[in-house]
């Protein structure tokens, strides 16, 4: 595969052609916040946290879907970008009821941590405080819409890895909601295999193991790499990291 050279924050960097900008940045230790991206799933480009500036392009581009091409000049942490990331997190926190203190993911949550990392320590917008249900009908898992940020990792993992497509989004705009089958209680879903992949990939406490109490839920994304390596490269290495 061809090697291309790009300039990232004034430094020359080489990358494989066709690699996404996000993976190049991560290889070089440049951390960008992401919420909808997850290695192993298709890209969505929806959370807009990984937006970067590209010279000659007057629009900000999401690193997760932008391919690395020869001569690209990229800036990842300009004042404007840092400010926008903070504002986007403010918007996400204002949208639903993200009450970290009483969330199963408290302390392990990607949303919580991204906010801390970019320094989003208060939300200037009005909290929308929608009234949203909690679906605890499944025997093993729970779905709390109050914590959902509509990243659709669950939709994608269920469709692309498990092949069940239990989840999808209904409605649109701020009224979008995760649904199982025909908007039925999760426990009544006939397509759900109870595999739990959606729970593991969920960045927040929206999907959790039943019985988890505040701050007890931890998630493992490792299985995804393991499955994909197995499928794509026929390598089924069972290491310690994957056995927990």
């Amino acid at each position, binding site marked *: 595969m061809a090697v291309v050279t790009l300039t990232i924050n004034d430094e020359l960097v080489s990358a494989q052609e066709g690699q996404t900008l996000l993976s190049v940045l991560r290889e070089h230790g440049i951390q960008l916040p992401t919420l909808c991206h997850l290695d192993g799933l298709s890209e969505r480009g929806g959370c807009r946290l990984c937006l970067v500036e590209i010279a000659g392009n007057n629009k900000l581009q999401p690193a997760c879907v932008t391919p690395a091409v020869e001569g690209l000049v990229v800036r990842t942490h300009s004042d404007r970008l840092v400010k926008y990331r903070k504002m986007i997190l403010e918007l996400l926190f204002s949208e639903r009821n993200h009450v970290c203190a009483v969330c199963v993911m408290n302390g392990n949550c990607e949303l919580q941590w991204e906010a801390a990392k970019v320094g989003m320590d208060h939300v200037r917008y009005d909290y929308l405080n929608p009234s949203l249900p909690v679906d605890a009908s499944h025997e093993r898992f729970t779905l709390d819409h109050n914590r959902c940020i509509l990243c659709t990792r669950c939709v994608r993992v269920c469709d*692309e890895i498990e092949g069940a*497509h*239990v989840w*999808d989004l*209904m409605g649109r705009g701020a009224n979008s909601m995760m*649904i199982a*089958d*025909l*908007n039925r209680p999760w426990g009544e879903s006939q*397509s759900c295999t109870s595999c739990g992949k959606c729970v593991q990939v969920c960045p927040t406490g929206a999907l959790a193991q039943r019985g988890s109490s505040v701050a007890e839920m931890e998630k493992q994304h490792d299985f995804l790499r393991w499955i994909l390596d197995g499928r794509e490269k026929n390598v089924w290495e069972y290491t310690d990291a994957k056995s927990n």
Partner: protein
Amino acid sequence: MGVLTDPKPRVKPRNAAGGQAHPSGDPRFKLIDRTLKRFSYQQDALIEVLHTAQEAFGFLEDDLLVYVAHQLKLPLSWVYGVATFYHFFSLAPQGEHSCIICMGTACYVKRAAEIVSALQAEFGVEAGNTTADGKLSLNTARCLGSCGLAPVLVMDGDVVARQTPEEALARVRELLLGAARTPEAMSELTPLSATEA
């Protein structure tokens, strides 16, 4: 981008022989079957099939969505997601009569919002809903493309131009009393019939 631009249907569509007919034997399902056949059961015909289903049944009840999903071999949540994304599809039965108030820019500038509040107050129903007795569905539209006649209402399919809140109230009351249609009743705005499409 896999989900959205995946060019290949995930399951090989069956051919025109089609799937099992609906067990109820309701003849309206034949209309749906016809559309399904016209599109050779291709999954990308989902919206067209839902259009036909809604025309035939008036709204999309769960049973209907399940039928469509099975015929097209699509996941249920996919079908439900599409049906709820578009404003045109209704998952609840509509009232006997309908009144749509255009809230396009021209109508808004001509104070259509006052008509909406007047009707909401009078009939005790929020726009987008049907009265408890199932008599009247009150809806707003984003623009009916009749901006020259603002503000515009559509009552049971008839376009009514240049309304004041008082006139609109009177018209809806008349409608509910079963008064005759306005003389300008137009065939033009009735929905495309399923057979013609």
